[in-house]
């Protein structure tokens, strides 16, 4: 299992954009709708929002990005501290390098998320490990297409976006 320090290295190529706390809870958006491996996925979220974010691959496998600590949760440390994440308005993700906690019993590991083509769903909630109907969950989907192109000069590495509201 990876250490926390390893997880929080720049290998996790996302852009965190903090937004004003005054924003009301709202929806989340994934753009573009069709994502090629050499493109950058932008996830926009009205803030403040829930503390947990996970990606679901086409097979339904879950990859946690931000999560609250729970004893026995099977995950080491989140890529983003959940309290900080609540006020993140925008994530910029390179599919070639984007990683999360693959949530599979006995095989939990920090691994690449975009490993196959197909529809990926990102879910955002205060708690994803549940079905309490009173807990809000937002989601957006993106169709991932692997272009298998050279990564030279693409936006795969950390792309620092501008702060936005």
């Amino acid at each position: 299992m990876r250490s926390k320090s390893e997880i929080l290295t720049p290998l996790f190529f996302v852009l965190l954009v903090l937004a004003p706390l005054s924003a009301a809870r709202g929806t989340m958006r994934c753009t573009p709708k069709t994502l090629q491996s050499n493109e950058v996925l932008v996830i926009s979220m009205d803030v403040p929002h829930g503390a947990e974010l996970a990606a679901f691959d086409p097979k339904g496998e879950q990859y946690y990005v931000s999560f609250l600590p729970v004893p026995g949760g099977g995950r080491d440390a989140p890529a983003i501290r959940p309290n900080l994440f609540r006020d993140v308005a925008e994530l910029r993700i390179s599919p070639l390098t984007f990683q999360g906690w693959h949530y599979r019993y006995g095989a939990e590991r920090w691994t690449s998320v975009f490993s196959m083509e197909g529809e990926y769903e990102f879910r955002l909630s205060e708690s994803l490990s549940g079905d309490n109907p009173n807990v809000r969950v937002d989601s957006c989907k993106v169709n991932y297409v692997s272009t298998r192109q050279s990564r030279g000069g693409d936006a795969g590495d950390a792309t620092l976006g501008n702060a936005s509201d």
Partner: protein
Amino acid sequence: MSTRRVLILGIAAFGFLHLDTTSAFAGRPRVPDAPVVSWSNISDTQIRGSISQCRIEGVAVNTPECNQRIYVTGQFGECTDTPQALVNLPSAAAESWTLSGLEPGQQYLLWARAWTAEGGVCTAVASVKTDVLHVTNLELVRETRVPPPLDAYDAVEYRLSVGNNTAEDYDRVVVGAWVNHPIVWPQESEVVVGRVNRRGGAETRSTDTFTFYKPHGMTFDFSSFDFSFEVDSILSSRAEVAPTGSSVTLPGASAIVQFAPGSFSAPTFVSLASTFTYVLEDNILETAAVFRPYPVVSRELRIQTGGVSPTNDTVVTVTLPQSFLNGILSTYHIRAFARFVGHELSWEPGFISFDPVESQFNATSRTITLTLPPSAFAPENTSDPIEAVVIFAGTPANDGAALAAPLEAGQETQAGVSPTCLQGLMCPLVGGCNVAVLGEFTPDRNGRPHRGVDYVAARGTTVRAASAGIVERSYLSTCTPKCNSGNTIIVRHIDGSASRYLHLERRDVVAGAFVNEGETLGTSDNTGDSRGDHLHFEYVRTGDITTSSERIDPDQCIGRLLSGVISVGSPAYPDSTIVSVWFDTVRLSRPDWEHIQFGMNDYNVSGVSSGSHSILLRVEYIPFGCGSPGCRSSLRVVLPPGMRFSNGTSQWDISNVLLDVGRYFTLPVVVSP
């Protein structure tokens, strides 16, 4: 209250004797014509006996296979000056023996042993068996489906025939059965299966029926049955009570029942009997668990008023045996409990429970005076006579709160299990049950209720049955909108409660399957209306899975409740000390301590909450020949992980100490959170 108790009628015993019919009941029920005892180490050597009041007679037979002399004696469980008969048989000889001097009205457990002075191949110990009674036939009467919601079970009724009843001094004979199968109900408990009325002295054969419950479709044979019989009522009296009131007294004035004027409108015959019933002792421990009754006096008082109940309160004065009083802990006081019939709704007739009645104990005279309300006089079943049954027990002196508000939600009862949980549940997830953020049980939260608990569980985590039962449903939900539970399994448990497992990845069991506690049901996932991987777990105490409000928070029944094995006994051969074992108010060892093995015995405990508990040991049997001072023996108790004695250790030993039959040891233990 487990409805298995409903089936349990009063068994009153003078002696307890065991008929081993294990092989006889395999396949088509068949029983031997006569109880013949053979021991593995003393081939064909037999001890036979018969019981008459205050005396036991028998014949010991040695055989050529045993080339050494054997000796026979009797051991009586709770008697300090044990009567003994000693015969000294050469090989291939027989000799009759008699054990006399039994005190009327006292309970004895008969043990007979044969051994050789020289040891060797003939060294063996066995319980004596008599030809007082034996089972002659066992046949299936009918098998019917139990009505919903327990229709996953079949009610199977058998008819048992008994014969050769030579117990002429007894009022009645009762046959008990033990069903040692994890899914058959009732299990590991006594069930009255036969009754022989000897009052006329002419009846030598009788039949009776009994019912047990098994999962529908399950094939059952009797290979796991043990049969025993017990003989009832050795101390009784009968008198006529006039409308003006009078008293009825047991021999020796051990009990006086005073009926007030006007209790009966016409002269009424009243019968008193002092009996012993392991089952009732078990019943009081269960139904009156909130009062923590232990120890329970070894006899109960039965007051039969025939066909009418007294209209006024009845005052009863009973002299309690010193042996019982010796076992009362210093922090306990003595309380009288009366049997009440039909207190609660039950799908089975004859529901009985024990509730405390007003009573006062006089330590000087060893008498307890109690007041029985008219409602305490009732027939257990419609065909039974009207009868009051009173049992005495020690209870903690500080149980006033329990009296004031018994059985409130969350209140702990026996072994620390919340009364809202019919049973302690095993965590349904391999790896532990950790409640997810916002995954708590919320029955009436603002907004929609969440009547289950969400446990964090990565996809693929093994989900197991929280308790034994039958898979009632195993299906993929199609419910819409926002009600889809995905792959779902419902398990109906033996006590009628049910558990639900939602959003599963894989279902490894089909409807109708029998699952033991901890058996794999499938794996967890995120199927259906769910935000992410987890296990949504529900527990329906009443079993009414169609009414969501019947669900209770299952997390209070599992997770932090400890399960494990407590080992108790004498660690070294040939030390043959035998002790009965209680954990809090729960008897771990079988009441018929004849079945406790020499050496160490393992007892399972489950549903034990964190905090302070106690183990109570009572010495039942000491090494043979230990009837005089100076006999020393040893005891050991080994606790399971998570449980410690107050000094922090997990093992308790005493060795080379003087032990007396009836001596108690109270061992405080602590379960860490």
